[in-house]
Structure formats: C-alpha cells, structure tokens
C-alpha cells in the first residue's frame, strides 16, 4: 500500500524533522571526520546527495520490477549494496575527469560513501515504507540535502569551537559528539510540525 504523502511535505520532513543524520543517526563516520573543513563538507554533501538520489531511483526500479515479482525480497541487502558500490565507482571516475581538485579534496571519503549507512538506510526505508517512485526520489533527495545541511552546520560550529575553551579531556570527538547531540535536539524540535513514516 503506497502511503498517502504529499511529496512537498515529504521533502521538508526528510530535510528537517526526519533528518537522516540527526533523527536516525545514519552516516556518522564521514559526518564526524570530514566536518572539520567547510570546503570538503560541501563537496561530500553534494556527493552524498547525488549518490543517494541516483541509487534510490535505481534500487526502487530493481525492487519493484525484479525483487518483488520474483519473490526475492531477501536479496535486497546484497542488491542495494552492489548498486551503491557501482554508482560510487562510476561517480568517482566522472569526478576525477571533471574536477580533479574536488576529487583530491574528497580523497578516501568518496569511495567510503559506498559504506555510508545513510545511503543503504534510505534504500531500506523506501522499501519498508512502500514509497512510490516520486516519493522515493523526493525522500532520497531530501535526505541528501538534510545530510548536507547537517554536515555544513557542524563544520561551521566546529570552526567556532576551535577558539572555544573546551576542557582538555573533551577536545576532538568528545565535544563533537556533544555538539551533534544538541543539533539533533534542535532538529527534532521541528517534529511537531511535520512527521512521516
């Protein structure tokens, strides 16, 4: 049963109230390690958004026209991962050709998008929640934007934190995790306005 959801509502919900990072805590490792630098954060945010949207579309097609008709739903994990890995591989080659500077600044994190949980997470949510194709595209694109927004926000906060008198024991990942906790609370504050399942 396809849920009755307005795509515009779904878009805003996936960016803010159900932010893939701050509400579901998916895609944390590159979020924490890349967010020290604004430029790389932007690059990675863009890359995640593109990969997320593309893979969700491909995975939806495979899910609806291959896995469900053949009753092979249990293969979804392996299929989704293969599609994600191949998409990242292709994207990597294209970025290397088009923008070597972006390629260098993303470095190891571009191939690591393959194992970014946010991407597999979105594919699985779209299956569990029975989204239509339009809903899947909107949800994936919104989740990507939400991830991008979160990492850029964290990068901006980190920039200020450099000068803050953080206790020695909390420097680095400690204060970063606390910051993310506060950010998550702020984002969840929107949840009264919109909510999606």
């Amino acid at each position, binding site marked *: 049963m396809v849920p009755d959801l307005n795509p515009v509502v779904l878009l805003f919900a996936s960016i803010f109230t159900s932010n893939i990072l701050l509400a579901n805590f998916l895609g944390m490792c590159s979020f924490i390690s890349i967010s020290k630098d604004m430029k790389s954060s932007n690059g990675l945010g863009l890359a995640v958004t593109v990969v997320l949207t593309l893979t969700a579309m491909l995975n939806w097609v*495979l899910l609806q026209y*291959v*896995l469900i008709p*053949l009753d*092979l739903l249990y*293969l979804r994990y*392996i*299929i989704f991962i*293969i*599609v994600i890995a*191949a998409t990242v*591989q*292709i994207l990597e*080659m*294209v970025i*290397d*050709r088009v923008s*070597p*500077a972006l390629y*260098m*600044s993303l470095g190891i994190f571009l191939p690591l998008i393959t194992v970014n949980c946010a991407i597999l997470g979105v594919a699985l949510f779209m299956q569990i929640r029975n989204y239509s194709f339009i809903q899947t595209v909107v949800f994936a694109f919104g989740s990507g934007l939400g991830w991008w927004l979160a990492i850029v926000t964290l990068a901006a906060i980190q920039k200020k934190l450099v000068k803050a008198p953080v206790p020695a024991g909390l420097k680095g990942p400690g204060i970063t995790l606390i910051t993310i906790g506060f950010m998550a609370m702020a984002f969840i504050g929107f949840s009264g306005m919109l909510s999606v399942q």
Partner: protein
Amino acid sequence: MDFLIAPVVVAVIAGVLAAAISIVDKIVNNYGPVNISINGGEKIVTLNGGESLLSSLASQEIFIPSACGGRGSCGAGKCQVTSDVGVHLPTELPYLSKEEIEKNIRLSCQVKVKTDIDIMIPEDLFNVKKFKSTVKSIRDVTHDIKEVIFDLQGEEINFQAGRYVQLVVPPYDKIKGTTQRAYSMSSKPGDKGVIEVLIRLVPGGIATTWVHTRLKEGMEVELIGPFGDFERSETDAAMVCVAGGSGMAPFKSILYDMFEKGETDRDVWYFFGARTTKDVFYMKEIMELDGKWEKFHFIPALSEPEEGSGWTGETGIITDVLDNYLKTKINSEKAREGYLCGSPGMIGACNKVLTANGIHLDKIYYDNFA
C-alpha cells in the same frame, strides 16, 4: 530449478553494473591521443592521455628526475607547464614556493596528461638515458655500505662529477611494482663505461634492502641518469666539503675528477664524519690523494672511536670539527663555498655551522633525496 533464480538475478544485475562501469571507464578515461609540446615546440611527442606527465614522458624516453620514484614525496620532478592543466593539487603545494606556483611549476608525477600540454624542461634532461647495465662487482666497504659497480655494456654516460642516477628496483617479496631510488655516482666522469655507487643499508628501506640482500654480480639492472645539479662551481673559492657515510660518493667523483683534470690550484677541505673505525672507508686512497695534492686537505673525524683502535684523526661530532677548522684553519678572508652530502639531519646541522661562519646559504650546495 527455482533455486537458480536468486543466483542468476544477482549475477545478471552485477554483470550489467560491471559492464556499465567498464563502458564509463572507456569513455571517461579515454583522452585519445594528446600532444606534449616541449620547450616551445622544440620537440613534440604524441601519446595516449590518462597517465601522469612523469610516466608519459618516461614512455617517450624523456626522464624527469624522480628521486622518490613518482610518489610525490621528494619534490624533484618539477617542470614548468605553460598551458592550462587546472589548479595546483594539495599534493603538490608543500613542495612549491610562491614564485614557482606563480610560474605554474608543477610536480610531473602528480599532473595527469589529459589534453594537449606545453611544458618547459631543462635542455640537460634530453641527455638523460635509461641504461641496461650488468652488475660488474659488489664490495663491502664497511659493515653496512656496499660499493656497486655497474657495467653499461658498451654504452657511455656523459656527466658532471656530483650527479646522481636512479636505480630501478624490480618487484620482490611483498614489494609490488618497481621502485626507483637516487644514488650519487662515485665514479669519475672520465670512466664513461661504468657507474659506481655507494649504498648504505637503511633498515626497512626497499631499495637498499634489495641491493644488500638480492643483488648479485652479473645481474641485469636498469639505471636512469644523469640527474641533479650538484657540481663544483667554476670559481676559485675554497671548497669546504662535508660528507657522512655513503655521502662520500659524489666527493670521490669530484675530487678524482679535479685531480685528473689538473684543477689542483684550488683549496679543498674534505671533512668526512663517521662514528667508529668500523664506519670509515677509502681512507688509504683519499690519504694518498692528500699526499699528492698540496692544496687538498682530508679531515676524517670519528664521533666515537673505540679505545685502543689507534685512531689518529680528529675526534668529535663532524659539525664541531668543522666549526673549529672554519674558525682557526681555513682562511676566512678568501671566498669559501660549502658542499654537503649526507643525511638530511647532517645537512641541516652543517648548514647552520657554515652560515654561522659567514658562508652564505647561496654558496652552500647539496642534493635532497628525501
């Protein structure tokens, strides 16, 4: 046959995606034939794009120096690019000065050849060749330094004393791919048919371990050279040379070259530093040269000579000995120049001592092989 459906589905999907990747790879990484125009069109080579500038040129028998073997860790492979190849990469910036960045000097191992490209390289590099040599002899000169002589099999190498060659180490054990490392030539420019190098065993070193454990007489080895700009200046300033360990190599070449060509009217002070009597070598030969050449002074110094070893030379750290000589023995009224070869630490310390004694950094020459 139902059990076949799942594997077939996975295989088909994986196969389609793999095909998509190969097709994109073919399209994206196919730069087609590109032209590299060298020194304003003096030489134009055409090849398939996609490789680094360093390896593209090497495939055309033009060898840009790469003391580290193209890893981007030595900064030797600099080359001016006069056409647009995009911004400097983060991997290049640490090795380039502001002026170099303005002139668009690039590290040839980091720049990919994707379109037609114009570059400027020193004329000298056209002289660089790849030699197929055989190992003529290997001799232990100390417990950890080997003197290796390569026979060039009838070919000749023309070089200034002080230059270096790159030794091509084939893959062995867990080391995949070939490795290149730079070694100063210790043979005289007059001996054109052979190349002699001194190689000290560096624990964990890829090339030095290979030389010390695998290299045998008669083996075929590739050498690329000559490279570098380390050489004696054409002035009559006194030369203050400092070497440590296998840093002996370029000085052996320079000193014998000077003596052979009769350039004996110049003051030369040669400081050689080592730890114990086990670490000194070529003593007899260089002492003999000292005896025959009035203005040449050889000062070997040991930092930790063993008790009862009968060591009669200087004792102490080489920089202290050097400082002492500069202050008391070497005429400071005449022009002096510094020549250094050894570990980066030694070069740094000697730079300090020489500048403190009034020798300007511009007048201190050394190679950096890090």
